[in-house]
């Protein structure tokens, strides 16, 4: 059996009212890893906020700091080597200052996370039902039977057929797509307010990817769970999210509603990412690319970090670049943005 749905799939971005208090507000989050005697800066003053129920795509090339930003929201980085500065305000609580014990009450209950490779995130020696139930019973004092019943409901919720039977199966008995559904069931069983999904579809085939992005979007719409979708695939963001945050070399460089940024990116890096992708109907032409590579964290240039690869670089770009507002609800880290006409996904 097959279902067909009509695009538009990503519904028009609900504009976030300024009066609505954000669910999550990240302020000047800088992360560094201990390296020898010093510290290697990985991200620098990352700031963004997420409204309740909002779905935000976090994009950029590998090594730009997307994954560590996601991990630092849940304080999942090793405390000995990772140093976090700045604030992670979640519903008014600063997660950055919570004790490990307090943090455990937040993880899974208020904020949950799913990862790229479901097989390595699942324990091979426990049934999926046991693992989902555990995620619930850590936070709620219910019986085993109740935990099992809730696991079955959660599996049904994520579209797993015959959940009563699947509940007693082991991860190796499930396909990749089913495993990712199990991860989603586990992440959402406590009805968290925020789900951080780190490349949840990258290891999946395109037809299964479509099922999973659809599922995440509809679950988020139905339950009001906000979503941070970390991915390198701008197409996935377009179909799942309402807002897109572009990161480059450890900094946020653009933050805008999805439809707006696809039509008209304001940062040359975002534009480069959009143009590099071969279009389905664009055949045999010369493809755009971004020359060079991301600078290494130990040799970060001053000023604009994208400068060396930017076709629009000029004198002035070596100055420190603040995020500037260019339109209502859009910010960009490029002082030239007001003057630039950049190409988006549509020519």
């Amino acid at each position, binding site marked *: 059996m097959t279902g*067909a*749905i009509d695009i538009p799939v990503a519904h028009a971005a609900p504009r976030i009212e300024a009066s609505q208090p954000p669910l999550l507000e990240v302020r000047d989050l800088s992360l560094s890893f201990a390296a020898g005697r010093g510290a290697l800066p990985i991200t620098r003053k990352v700031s963004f906020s997420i409204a309740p129920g909002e779905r935000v795509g976090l994009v950029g*090339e590998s090594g730009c700091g997307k994954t560590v930003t996601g991990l630092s929201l849940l304080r999942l980085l090793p405390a000995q080597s990772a140093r976090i500065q700045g604030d992670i305000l979640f519903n008014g609580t600063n997660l950055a200052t919570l004790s490990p014990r307090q943090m455990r009450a937040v993880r899974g209950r208020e904020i949950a996370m799913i990862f790229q490779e479901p097989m390595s995130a699942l324990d091979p020696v426990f049934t999926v039902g046991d693992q989902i139930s555990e995620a619930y019973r850590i936070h709620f004092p219910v019986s085993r039977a109740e935990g099992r019943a809730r696991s079955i409901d959660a599996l049904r919720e994520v579209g797993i057929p015959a959940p009563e039977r699947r509940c007693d199966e082991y991860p190796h008995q499930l396909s990749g797509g089913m495993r990712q559904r199990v991860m989603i069931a586990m992440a959402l069983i406590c009805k968290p307010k925020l789900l951080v999904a780190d490349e949840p579809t990258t290891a999946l*085939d*395109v037809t299964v990817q*479509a*099922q999973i992005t659809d599922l995440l979007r509809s679950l988020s719409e139905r339950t009001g769970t906000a979503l941070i979708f970390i991915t390198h695939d701008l197409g996935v*963001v*377009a179909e799942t999210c309402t807002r897109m945050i572009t990161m480059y070399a450890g900094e946020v460089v653009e933050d805008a509603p999805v439809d707006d940024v696809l039509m008209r990116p304001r940062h040359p890096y975002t534009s480069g990412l959009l143009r590099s992708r071969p279009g389905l109907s664009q055949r045999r032409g*010369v493809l755009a690319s971004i020359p060079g590579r991301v600078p290494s964290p130990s040799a970060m240039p001053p000023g604009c970090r994208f400068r060396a690869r930017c076709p629009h670089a000029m004198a002035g770009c070596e100055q420190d670049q603040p995020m500037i507002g260019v339109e209502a609800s859009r910010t960009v880290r490029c002082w030239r943005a007001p003057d630039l006409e950049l190409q988006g996904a549509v020519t």
Partner: protein
Amino acid sequence: MPSSAHMQSARVASETGILAVRDLRILFPTRDGRDTVKAIDGMDFEVRAGETFGIIGESGSGKTTLGRALVSLLPPSHGQILHDGTDPASLGSGAFRNHRRDYQIIFQDPNAALNPRMTIIDSVMEPMEVMGEGDPASRRRRGIEVLERVGLAAEAADRYPHQLSGGQKQRVNIARVLTLRPKVIVCDEVVAALDVSIRGDVLNLFADLQREFGLTYVFITHDISVVSHISDRIAVTYLGKLMELGPAEDVVERPLHPYTRALLSAEPVPLPTHLRVDRRIILEGEIPSPVAPPSGCRFRTRCPSVQPRCAEEVPVWRDVKPGHRVACHFATADGPPADNQKAPSA
């Protein structure tokens, strides 16, 4: 089974294309030895000299097995693969060795393909050494020349793989096969491991090299946007069989098989809401096991247009339009059959 096609193959070599695949089957025993994985279960197609032949399919469709078989890294269990009319399996070991330099393959993971303890130039010279070509000085000259051609400075020659980026390493792998001046290069997911920002560069390089050296490419990928960009013709694989084969533009713009249509519609496109026009078809479930593929048409368990006949009869691999083949009982030159649940869109 050797067929009449086999008998004629030598004579009609130039017309059959630089690669001809005849009733190809590749079977592997399962680990417990009780069953057989039908990785390739009957494929027939030809690749023409000088073209880029794209193969798309999901994991488990047999595309990687096919790529390896095309360059004689895996022997066919049944059927044949002809290289320019010659069956490499019929060659003696010396002739075979000499022959296979013309048919090269580049793999997905640029790291795994390079020996971390060898310098770049040593890796690039190795194929020439294996073939006993030239002397060390001429091999080095040729190696540097080819490295420069793929856009790496001569300084890269004495570095080690860990000192290069992913894109640079994939250029080294391209350089390695170019040293042998092959006719055909099978590219198995060669840009999948690269960031989107540098994919364009590597794909542009492939296109330039093809023009310069008259190469034939077989481009295997799960990425529809890559395959549609680079290919002249596209073959769509599903569970060890071809579903559709035709000119790239036709396959992408006017697919005839329900699977191709679903696959294309599943591709996420970075377009704003108001520019999305096409209907998205969400296939349920996943690709079945190649140990026990469904009877009749293999796609029937996920097909939105399935009919009772699909379980009973294997669809004939037939020309629906000139040069456009499809394996579906109900596809016509006008397109795939309508969904069972929805009336055909106006």
